[in-house]
């Protein structure tokens, strides 16, 4: 497996500029001769599809939702980072780059992160020009807020709906291109496979989710912007439909899968209430700007929160991390919450929660100021829990939120399969082992608006393409195989629903490969997953037929892939004998319980190669080098 990251030469600050000059261009008149298949319409997919269409390429854009506007980027709440330094508090491209590399626990690629910081400012400009209604100060200038892992205020936001507003901006750009006839948008359609011809990605196999028709979509390059795989845990903050199928199918066709064990457990989610629970709801990290996290000092203190006097409360984040306090990065905050709950100091009926308290902020700023900042979040919390966070502290607990791992890509965002490009959360490149808050939106839009439109031209300009169409045997075979796999699922006619298997898989993953992991548990998971998979294919019940809208069948295909993919996640967690970012191995911690990294042996990207259904995957390494930021113990004390 060739893992040449193709990092351009030259000083860090000039690499992207140099590269943009060195890359081949496609003559404007020739651009319309190329067709790009884009899968996904979230921030990365919609921005990429719209921008490539503006440049003149033919674009086909697929999504499983009924409208492109509903992709899960829409749910991002808190904000988007940029190095504008509008607050004059010492921010710069270098500082955003530095914070991101450090926040990622020195497991990301410096050159990619630097480029991300460089283009961050243009994203804000672009979004404002599209009519994104960011929050503003009375003087009419853009407002900023602080986020975890940073000591400057660089996060732009639109109330608690930043993802929604940015996505609607990208969606409006996409709609404009659909009207212009340059993008063919196909909602309610699911990618079932990737088609590789002569070593290059040339298209995908699609299922029309309304009619059940399975058909080829072909072109000259494929762009996956299909999001993360957090739903391998069943319960996560992801939307119900989020899945790994597109990325996993690409992996089975030869794309390397990088760092699958890196996933982010978000510290501020509404705790689980029962078995019926279908998803976990995030409360934006921005709440930690004004909320104080605490648990009772005494084990088993069951008094109501407002009855516990100040002196008997443990504001453990402020105590342990005085310089960052409640704004430590997500991995640190999540682990600390788990630790106090493990000690028996957790709150609520299950003991699996901590308080996030706004009483001080309300006293200091007044209720209306808090309402201004977080009104919709408080409203949502109230709806779900039936408790009023203005008078009672919120109860929160960590939940699976984001996956830093993803398909391996080089500097051009191309996977190990030529022509297959991967953007946004679906790739692995920028966040290392932990993503900082408000950086996912930044990365999705950076990839889509400002990276892929250039690098795809370089790919086209550097290669010649034989004309193909859907009649090519490779498409016919893949479509056939996808169809018979679905038929096989329908034919099992067993006794258990798809959801029941998904829930069991989630339980295995959360227990053994969740917030903290150890060899023994991971090895248990490696035994349990194949057993569950075998039972799935023997006993799953998928009612209905394949030639109709069939929700059970859609889920069955996705869960079947999760049941295979989960094994690589566990293998990767097992192979990474260190703790870094979101990956915490109990064997590797300091006496104070902080993560212990091993730079000597694990300063690499772990890239997994598929070797066959009954073979173990093979791990390859891309060594990481740090020219600017010297890896150090990540301290937020």
């Amino acid at each position, binding site marked *: 497996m060739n893992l040449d990251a193709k990092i351009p030469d030259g000083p860090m600050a000039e690499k992207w500029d140099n590269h943009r000059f060195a890359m081949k261009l496609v003559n404007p008149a020739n651009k319309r001769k190329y067709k790009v298949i884009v899968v996904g319409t979230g921030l990365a997919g919609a921005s990429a599809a719209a921008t490539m269409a503006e440049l003149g390429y033919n674009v086909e854009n697929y999504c499983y939702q009924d409208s492109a506007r509903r992709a899960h980027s829409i749910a991002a709440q808190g904000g988007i980072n940029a190095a504008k330094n509008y607050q004059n508090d010492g921010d710069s491209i270098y500082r955003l780059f530095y914070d991101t590399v450090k926040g990622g626990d020195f497991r990301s690629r410096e050159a990619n992160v630097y480029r991300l910081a460089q283009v961050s400012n243009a994203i804000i400009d672009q979004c404002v020009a599209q009519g994104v209604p960011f929050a503003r100060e009375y003087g009419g200038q853009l407002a900023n807020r602080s986020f975890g892992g940073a000591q400057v205020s660089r996060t732009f936001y*639109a109330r608690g709906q930043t993802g929604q507003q940015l996505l609607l901006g990208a969606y409006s750009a996409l709609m404009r291109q659909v009207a212009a006839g340059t993008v063919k948008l196909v909602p309610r359609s699911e990618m079932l496979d990737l088609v590789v011809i002569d070593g290059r990605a040339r298209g995908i196999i699609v299922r029309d989710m309304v009619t059940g028709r399975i058909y080829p979509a072909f072109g000259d390059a494929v762009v996956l912007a299909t999001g993360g795989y957090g739903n391998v845990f069943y319960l996560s903050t992801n939307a119900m439909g989020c899945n790994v199928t597109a990325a996993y199918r690409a992996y089975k066709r030869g794309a390397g899968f990088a760092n699958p064990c890196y996933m982010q457990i978000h510290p501020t989610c509404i705790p689980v209430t029962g078995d019926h629970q*279908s998803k976990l709801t995030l409360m934006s990290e921005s709440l930690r700007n004004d909320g104080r996290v605490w648990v009772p000092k005494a084990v088993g203190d069951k008094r109501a929160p407002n009855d516990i006097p100040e002196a008997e409360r443990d504001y453990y984040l402020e105590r342990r991390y005085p310089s960052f306090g409640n704004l430590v990065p997500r991995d640190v905050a999540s682990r600390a919450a788990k630790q106090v709950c493990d000690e028996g100091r957790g709150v609520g009926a299950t003991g699996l929660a901590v308080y996030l308290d706004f009483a001080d902020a309300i006293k200091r700023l007044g209720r209306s100021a808090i309402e201004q900042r977080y009104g919709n979040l408080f409203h949502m919390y109230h709806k779900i829990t039936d408790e009023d966070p203005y008078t009672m502290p919120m109860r929160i607990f960590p939940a699976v939120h984001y996956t830093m791992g993803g398909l391996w890509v080089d500097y051009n965002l191309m996977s190990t399969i030529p022509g297959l490009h991967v953007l946004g959360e679906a790739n692995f490149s920028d966040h290392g082992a932990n993503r900082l808050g408000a950086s996912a939106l930044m990365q999705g839009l950076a990839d889509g608006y400002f990276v892929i439109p250039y690098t795809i031209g370089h790919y086209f300009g550097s290669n010649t393409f034989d004309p193909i169409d859907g009649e090519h045997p490779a498409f016919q075979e893949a479509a056939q195989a996808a169809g018979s796999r679905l038929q096989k699922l329908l034919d099992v006619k067993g006794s258990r629903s798809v959801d029941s298997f998904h829930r069991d898989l989630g339980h295995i993953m959360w227990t053994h490969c969740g917030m903290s992991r150890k060899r023994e548990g991971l090895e248990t998971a490696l035994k349990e997953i194949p057993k569950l998979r075998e039972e799935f294919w023997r006993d799953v019940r998928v009612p209905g037929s394949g030639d109709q809208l069939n929700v*059970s069948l859609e889920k069955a295909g996705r869960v079947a892939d999760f049941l295979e993919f989960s094994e690589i996640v566990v293998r990767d967690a097992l192979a990474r004998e260190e703790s870094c970012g979101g990956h915490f191995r109990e064997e590797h911690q300091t006496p104070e319980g902080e993560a212990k990294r091993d730079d000597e042996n694990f300063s690499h990207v772990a890239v997994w190669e598929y070797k066959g259904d009954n073979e173990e995957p093979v791990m390859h390494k891309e060594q990481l080098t740090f020219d600017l930021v010297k890896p150090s113990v990540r301290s937020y004390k």
Partner: protein
Amino acid sequence: MHLTLHVWRQKSANDKGRLVQYEVDNISSDMSFLEMLDVFNESLIAKGEEPVAFDHDCREGICGACSLVINGIPHGPDEGTTVCQLHMRRFKDGDTIYIEPWRAKAFPVIRDLIVDRTAFDRIQQAGGFITINTGGAPDANALPIAKTEADLAMDAAACIGCGACVAACPNASAMLFVGAKVSQFLHLPQGHPERARRVKAMVEQMDAEGFGNCTNHYECMAACPKEIDVRVIAELNLEFMKAKISGRE
């Protein structure tokens, strides 16, 4: 708790469809309405029947996918709430609940409770955007925008495109939805160059899709999970009139 459900079942767009009565048990008051449907669907699958199809995705009230009429009210009895954020504590043991899809000519049923809302996308395509290619945008702070104006734009932009306004309106009008987009761009200077063209094109598309007109029932505002104010309809009307009178493109 125990509930009696009357659920709209329809195999496909061409099928006639009907309400079917079901009994469902073991519902906890902590469940969301959609989790209740999950539990109900599991019981159907256990009996070998096909589950009820309904649109849903984020389950946190922002994607706009969920779209059920519950006891005659789009998104159910709670104000400012999508179905996915409606909880069973709102209902009592022994209740009878009617669950239907959005009903409007422009939103044909695809299956059971799922309707086709692509008409909304086509209205957006007609003019719901600011014409600006990627790259070349001026500095984001180059153009100050009064906070009050930005807030009005954001109030309108909060629309999640779910279609409850259409389902609630006796005329199946989409004017709250269209008004929200027009209003967002009306309160931002970036939207001004195209304002006449935009409003005319969006209204024309809205009419072509078969949505009705506003006759001031305000049912849309009452049903809107984001509580978009009908002032956006007034703004839409005013903008439309100005555009027509001025003859501007």
